[in-house]
């Protein structure tokens, strides 16, 4: 097992001047929060670590961490993204890894429903980790979670309308036979 220092490459930071030490301790706390994405971050642990530091600054930081924890999309969302055939693409690069789609022997390419005309297209392997933590298209910042919410609201509204119409009909029936 490599140490935390190895994993996070901290050697470099230790070469920076000592006067910024407090900041680096804070940033390493935040770092560990940001980088432990696969194992769900334990907010309490982070909060405790921060609270043991300086009072008001720490509580502000805890608040910021809570607020800024972004919401991503789940696996089923990723599985259902529109697939793109590499044959239909030109000489394009994946905007994240910057490799040409054509150079990939086994490409798995998806298009985001962000509404761009040409389509914002990525390797599934590249966009996957991003969308698990964030809900925006990396190219146009369109919020895919908003779109999903809007669609759900629209569906709920339509369902509710249908139900209301049903009950109205029932009432009419009562009028006839009542």
């Amino acid at each position, binding site marked *: 097992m490599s140490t935390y220092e*190895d994993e996070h*490459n901290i050697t*470099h*930071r230790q070469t920076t001047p000592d006067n*910024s030490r407090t900041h680096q301790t804070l940033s390493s706390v935040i*770092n560990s929060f*940001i980088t432990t994405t696969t194992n769900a971050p334990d907010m309490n642990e982070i909060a405790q670590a921060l609270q043991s530091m300086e009072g008001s600054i720490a509580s502000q930081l805890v608040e910021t961490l809570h607020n800024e924890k972004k919401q991503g999309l789940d696996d089923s969302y990723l599985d259902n993204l529109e697939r793109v055939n590499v044959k239909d693409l030109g000489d394009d690069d994946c905007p994240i*890894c910057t490799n040409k789609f054509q150079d990939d022997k086994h490409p798995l390419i998806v298009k985001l429903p962000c509404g761009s005309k040409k389509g914002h297209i990525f390797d599934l392997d590249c966009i996957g980790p991003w969308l698990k933590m964030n809900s925006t298209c990396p*190219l146009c*910042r369109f919020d895919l979670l908003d779109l999903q919410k809007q669609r759900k609201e629209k569906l709920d509204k339509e369902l509710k309308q249908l139900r209301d119409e049903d009950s109205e009909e029932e009432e009419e029936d009562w009028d006839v036979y009542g």
Partner: protein
Amino acid sequence: MAALPKRIIKETERLISDPVPGITAYPDEANLRAFTVTMNGPDSSPYEKGIFDLELYLPDDYPMCPPKVRFLTKIYHPNIDKLGRICLDVLKDNWSPALQIRTILLSIQALLASPNPDDPLANDVADDWKKDEPKAIEVAKEWTAKYAKAKE
């Protein structure tokens, strides 16, 4: 440590072969994720003729997370604090994995050209800036002349 991702290698090569005007960025020999950066102060800004040293570090999950960038040269700017930390949306909430080291350095250069005291990181500097902008610009010029000199 895992091998350096191809994207980082490509970005580094391009930064060296086709540098951004007024900016140099070289990876440290011992750690290819750590860059030594110099940035010329933009013309007709208080930082004009200054040469600023920065350090840029690519965390392990770059490009899912933004690079960490810091000014090493002292600078008087409402969005840069005493430790050289930079208040810039694309380095935080507005980071996107489609951005690159290049685009980030360009954004920082643009921040030097147009300081934004309404979104401050260095609160006292931002206060000075809002109270008396001509005076703040004078101080920024003095600091530039004093700390951001070209090296012999």
